[in-house]
């Protein structure tokens, strides 16, 4: 084999590599997304409780697969860091019902942003995992293979959204799976089911008649941290630019 043949062999191998890694979801029939309407979220915490019940995350543990960030902003220009008050709801205890939150937010611009794993099409956690425990399914959902995961926490460092965490009992990393066991049976994810105001809508964006397709068509949607180039599958309606994290 001369040098030219060898280089040809390498060149032929590269597309095969891309196929094996399964980065492209072109051949799949479904493409799941979640549309979150920030205007409708009231910060009740039903989604957090439902998610923790459904997915066996301890209720008292301070991290969760999905959580709500409450922002309260004193409106003036320019806005400084001290003008923004932020609280996180991630357990069954709701900080938005506290006296201090109610008093400080009176008359201020206040909104609640539900957050979860964004199931990025170019996920940093999949890219950094040294044992290939994280992978894309054909529908675009990012899953953690908990039998392979060694708990090295690279993904926790890599995730720009802070959506992945170490499970306190299983000692491997855990994150939102879009309730993969539910959506494949035709059920809604637990957080979508528990949301009383319909702030979360889940569906298939490749289907033109689905509810999410209509919402995306009719509204201006945004994603969190577009500058990271992760192409998230969680789209936000009415997202405010104060939501930096």
């Amino acid at each position, binding site marked *: 084999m001369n040098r030219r043949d060898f280089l040809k062999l390498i060149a032929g*191998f590269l597309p095969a*590599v891309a196929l*094996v*890694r*399964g980065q492209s979801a072109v051949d799949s029939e479904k493409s799941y997304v979640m549309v979150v309407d920030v*205007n*409708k979220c*009231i*910060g*009740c*915490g*039903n989604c957090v409780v*439902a998610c923790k*019940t*459904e997915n066996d995350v301890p209720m008292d543990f301070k991290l969760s697969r999905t959580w709500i960030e*409450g922002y*309260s902003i004193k409106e003036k220009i320019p806005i400084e860091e001290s003008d923004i008050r932020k609280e996180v709801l991630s357990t069954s205890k*709701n900080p*938005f*019902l506290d006296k201090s*939150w*109610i008093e400080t*937010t*009176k*008359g*201020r611009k*206040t*909104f*609640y942003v539900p957050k979860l794993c964004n199931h990025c099409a170019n996920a940093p956690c999949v890219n950094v995992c040294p*044992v*290939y*425990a994280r*992978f894309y*399914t054909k529908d675009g959902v990012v*899953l953690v*293979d*908990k*039998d*392979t995961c060694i708990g090295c926490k690279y993904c926790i460092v890599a995730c720009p959204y802070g959506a992945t965490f170490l499970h306190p009992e299983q000692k491997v990393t855990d994150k939102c*799976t879009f*309730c*993969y*066991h*539910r959506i*494949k*049976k035709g*059920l*809604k994810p*637990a957080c979508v*089911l*528990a*949301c*009383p*105001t*319909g702030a979360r809508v889940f569906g298939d964006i490749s289907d033109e008649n689905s509810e999410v397709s209509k919402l995306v068509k009719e509204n201006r949607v945004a994603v969190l941290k577009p500058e990271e180039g992760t192409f998230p599958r969680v789209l936000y309606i009415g997202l405010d630019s104060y939501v930096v994290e």
Partner: protein
Amino acid sequence: MVEVKRKTMVLGLGFAALVYLVLFFYVFGFAPMITSSSQSKWVEIELSKEPKFSDTEICKECHYQLYIGMKNHSTVNCEACHGSGVEHTIKRSSDTIVVDKTRDACLKCHLDVEGRDVIETVNETHHAGVYCVVCHDPHR
């Protein structure tokens, strides 16, 4: 002397190239092939998990009168207030479902907190101490 140097350099570069190629083929070629089988195995494990939350469509099979009489909470799923209901659909007893009649259960959503414009809210002073369900029926 020059001959020896060149030989060492060629050998060194050759070794480096070999190490690089072995790593390249391992990382992009062989390892994903090995792990893809464990990944598809995990997808099956993930799919075998049993859901703990049912659906309103299943609740209405038995509680049809409550379902059609609903006005204000018609868009809210039953399990948003009553908790996970799969056990209740199997055992069908009243102790397997959450029936929380306290004030806190209602005020979780309906307390007058800033940023709750899409629903009706009440102040904490609104008939303090009296359960909401005394006057308001949540199923109407």
